[in-house]
């Protein structure tokens, strides 16, 4: 290995900056999954009876399913009985009414992560729901949102306070039986965020949820449900981190979005779960089902994701374009380094007339990582004049990593137009030397090239997130040629 390659390799082994553990007194269930645990979970969360039935249903279905096997991902079998399905920082009575009642250690953890929960300190214009292990610990700006008629609260609160909306919409996009992890999530999900934007309302601020896995040997199973009623508009952001631990931890979330007539939902994710160490020890298994239904005419859903973390990522944020003229978009940057594996992409299901979808996927692999794009564009007979444009680009850093692209296309409507473009490129040592010869460090050169590669996706992110995403990319990739 040449001198500069060695140097560059050293840079890669930077610390995962969010890897600290917070010492909190917690209520944690013993490991194991059975009906008793599920009853206990529903009870501790004070849920209405219909939810217990829902969970038991899901659990019974899950037991009939087999864990999926994937061609492009190597994974040890997961022992679902070794995981604890509930862990929450201890708190007084019925949950914190104000920040004073939250364990200061927890507040401190969020502060360290750059997410102060104190409204005075928050960036104006972003409301935050903070989910720590299994529960939501705080939601900011509730009052201001209420004035606009927006409901933004922890899922567990929505189950109690808005049962009609829950009954109508929960699992209406991702049925219990959808897949192995969706069934598991439905049985044991603990918290997450719930959003309802009423008719004609433009949500006055960005909404965001910050997920933090802290406890050891727990899984995080969160559930997010966003409903944009007719003519409404909302932009939602999601961020995630976890401590560095030697064992793998499971994160199996379900996110459902429903956009009614003329509504727009923009959903952005910066996922930075602990990726494991450079030899592939530890890290989060991130198995997520995210799906949106453009249920009304002219509805629009846009997914933007920047995936830098996790040992294994398996997710395909998708759009069902039911309404006529509805629009689905997917902008993705997925970065894998060292031993990380990502199998991600999207599904666009065109049902309504004149539906349009755009897919821009940027996969970056470094070290020995494997990065797979898997996408499906499906145009049903009913979808006259449907249009799709897919652009899939892969960037390789070094020559021990891999990129794979699997675009599936099924078209049943002759007037549809589906286009696919794909490229693969490589950051070469010569390019790095060229930049260094102009005065840039190798790490700045790599992040400049990578940022250039990701430009199209970054411009879709809300301002604050775009900056964070660029910094993150820098951290997880700097100088990874070897």
């Amino acid at each position: 290995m040449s001198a500069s390659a060695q140097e560059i390799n050293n840079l890669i082994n930077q610390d995962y900056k969010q890897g600290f553990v917070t010492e909190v007194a917690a209520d944690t269930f013993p490991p194991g999954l059975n009906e008793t645990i599920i009853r206990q979970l529903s009870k501790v969360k004070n849920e209405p009876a219909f939810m217990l039935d829902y969970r038991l249903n899901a659990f019974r279905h899950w037991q009939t399913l087999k864990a999926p096997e994937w061609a492009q991902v190597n994974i040890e079998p997961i022992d679902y009985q070794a995981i604890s399905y509930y862990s929450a920082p201890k708190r007084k009575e019925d949950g914190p009414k104000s920040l004073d009642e939250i364990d200061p250690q927890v507040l401190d953890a969020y502060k360290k992560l750059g997410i102060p929960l104190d409204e005075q300190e928050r960036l104006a214009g972003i409301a935050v729901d903070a989910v720590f292990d299994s529960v939501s610990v705080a939601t900011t700006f509730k009052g201001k949102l209420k004035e606009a008629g927006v409901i933004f609260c922890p899922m567990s609160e929505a189950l109690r306070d808005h049962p009609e909306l829950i009954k109508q919409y929960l699992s209406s996009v991702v049925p219990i039986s959808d897949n192995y992890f969706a069934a598991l999530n439905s049985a044991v999900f603990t918290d997450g965020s719930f959003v309802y934007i009423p008719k004609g309302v433009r949500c006055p601020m960005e909404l965001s949820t910050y997920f933090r896995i802290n406890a050891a040997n727990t899984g995080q199973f969160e559930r997010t449900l966003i409903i944009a009623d007719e003519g409404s508009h909302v932009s939602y952001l999601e961020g995630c981190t976890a401590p560095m631990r030697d064992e793998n931890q499971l994160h199996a979330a379900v996110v459902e979005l429903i956009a009614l007539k003329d509504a727009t939902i923009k959903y952005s994710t910066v996922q930075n779960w602990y990726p494991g160490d450079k030899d592939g020890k530890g890290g989060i298994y991130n198995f997520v089902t995210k799906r949106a239904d453009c249920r009304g005419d002219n509805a629009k859903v846009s997914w933007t994701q920047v995936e830098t973390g996790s040992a294994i990522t398996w997710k395909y944020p998708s759009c069902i374009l039911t309404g006529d003229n509805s629009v689905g978009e997917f902008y993705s940057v997925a970065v894998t380094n060292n031993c990380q594996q990502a199998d991600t992409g999207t599904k666009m299901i065109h049902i309504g007339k004149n539906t349009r979808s755009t897919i821009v996927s940027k996969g970056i692999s470094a070290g020995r990582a494997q990065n797979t794009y898997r996408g499906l564009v499906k145009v049903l007979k009913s979808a006259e004049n449907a249009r799709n444009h897919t652009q899939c680009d892969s960037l390789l850093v070094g020559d021990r990593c891999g990129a794979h692209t699997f675009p599936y296309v099924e078209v049943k409507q002759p007037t549809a137009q589906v286009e696919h473009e794909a490229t693969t490129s490589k950051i070469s040592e010569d390019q790095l030397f060229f930049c260094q010869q102009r005065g840039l460090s190798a790490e700045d050169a790599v992040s400049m090239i990578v940022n250039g590669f990701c430009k199209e996706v970054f411009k879709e992110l809300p301002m604050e997130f775009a900056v964070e995403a660029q910094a993150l990319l820098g951290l997880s990739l700097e100088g990874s040629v070897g």
Partner: protein
Amino acid sequence: MLSIKDLTASINDKAILKGINLEVKAGEIHAIMGPNGSGKSTLSHVLSGKSGYEVTGGSATYQGKDLLALPPEIRAREGVFLAFQYPLEIPGVSNVYLLKAALNAVRKHNGLDEVDAMDFLTLVKSKIKALDMDEKFLYRAVNEGFSGGEKKRNEILQMAILEPKLCILDETDSGLDIDALKIVADGVNSLRSPDRSFIMVTHYQRLLDYIKPDFVHVLAHGQIIKSGGPELALELEEKGYGWLEDGQVAA
């Protein structure tokens, strides 16, 4: 400015430079000529710090410092500039972005404030005009889809903006038509100054018609086998390298 003594270097255990000696004083222009494969690019790369070469002996002192001990980006920030024989493409990164990042890296290293976007644009536009390049090149990805001549001009643009002290031009004239050659030569000439030195690798006398060197050296088989004034280049043009190389073998 630069003092190279008995420099030897190899690549993949194959000796390429076999004892180079060269003194470059401030303000001087040195032309290096020689047959293909004689080690001219290797010398340029070793001086600028490209990885993959092993320096097996000798030294290169630049402004009193051990040049070979510095990482490549520090050499660049200290004023060593290489105009590449084959400029690289960097898709997705705009020319203007690279230029600004490079200039600020150099300025920062030298204790100067970074230039802001407005001042930078003013600067870059004046330079680009002098090189008869279209402003649209600024917003295109670095060298992507540039013709050979445009790439070479782009190298000179970078040099004009970074204002280095020691400019190494590796066959910058190759592949240029006569008009482009004049423009590039004008660009180089406008950078001539008593405290800036040039090492120009070239095969052709015609570049030296426009940029008059103080010294001409012939590099063959990894050694400088003959040095002289501008008249040596004319002699080479007439006789080729053969008569010198025969002498080399005999000696």
